[in-house]
């Protein structure tokens, strides 16, 4: 009996418990919803010009914010990871990072607009028009002013450096922290799969 228990415990440890308790680290990205103390934390490294990132944001992250972050079951943190071969991605990241300085309420409409209108601005670089649609005129002027601040660029660089350190090879890449474990997921996780995963952890 004891032997059986020991072997079960060994197998459980071997296959599920090898992950050392992990805490996500330093560089703060942009918190899109939920608190940092939520039982599940998603850190998303994303590029505004990547079509899979668009899909992931609009079809997975958005419903998650509504369904789980509002109940503080999940925290979503967004990290800028503009890929060098995307012409306007870094510029778009500047708008997003600057919008985060205006607060979460202003950041989300900017992200929504950047991803929704990706097909347009990625053709002609019309980021000003895209972001202006998302904010009241006064806020947009504030945002443009914030964008001049060198700390915005520095913050993006820091997030990119973190991504490089964590071996982010493609976007979207999501790091999921839960019950002392960490999973790195490259690619698009659909909302239903994410929902079933989350429900298996937090009821």
């Amino acid at each position, binding site marked *: 009996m004891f032997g059986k228990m020991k072997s079960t415990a060994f197998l459980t440890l071997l*296959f599920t418990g*090898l992950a050392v308790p992990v805490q996500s680290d330093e560089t703060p990205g942009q918190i899109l919803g939920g608190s940092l103390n939520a039982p599940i934390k998603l850190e998303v490294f994303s590029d505004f010009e990547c079509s899979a990132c668009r899909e992931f944001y609009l079809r997975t992250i958005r419903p998650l914010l509504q369904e789980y972050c509002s109940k503080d079951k999940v925290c979503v943190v967004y990290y800028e990871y503009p890929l060098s071969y995307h012409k306007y991605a870094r510029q778009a990241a500047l708008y997003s990072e600057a919008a985060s300085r205006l607060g979460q309420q202003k950041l989300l409409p900017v992200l929504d607009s950047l991803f929704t209108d990706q097909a347009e601005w990625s053709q002609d670089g019309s980021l000003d028009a895209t972001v202006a649609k998302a904010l009241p005129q006064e806020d947009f002027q504030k945002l443009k002013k914030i964008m001049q601040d060198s700390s915005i660029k520095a913050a993006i660089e820091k997030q990119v450096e973190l991504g490089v350190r964590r071996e982010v090879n493609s976007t979207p890449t999501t790091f999921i922290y839960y019950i002392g474990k960490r999973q790195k*997921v*490259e*690619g698009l996780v*659909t909302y*239903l*799969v994410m929902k*079933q*995963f989350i429900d298996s952890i937090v009821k």
Partner: protein
Amino acid sequence: MTMIRNSLHWLARMLLAVVFIYTGYIKVKAPLQFAVAITGYQLVPENLIWPIANYFPWIEIALGLALIIGWKIRYFSLGAVGLLLFFTVLLLITYFRGIDANCGCFSFDDPISLKTIFRDALLLVPAVFLAVETHLRSRDKTRTSAPAADPAAIA
């Protein structure tokens, strides 16, 4: 002859066991990444993706463990053939549909190609050998352990 046969039996068993335990293990460690790989095949209904990603790797591990300890080897070797056939057909279908998916077999950075299909199909060789060999072995055993005819009855 028997020694060669025994050695091949043992080699095939251990090779398949290590493969199934390893491939199960990497999926158990990253079930969501495995779910992304399954999604890429575009064959499974969305509501089944997570249950498959969550539970299927344990079947591979159980199969590997059964092969190592040699429990019900006749049935589990057939299971290995079935599973490898299933994987090979799945890869072939996805490849010929022109879908750019990740194999998710030995790693999650392994796009489906003729190479991955050949590699999976190659594993069928030890699996089929093991299934046939254990079948023959159990048949021989049944024959040799059959009770001798009753001399009285013959007389």
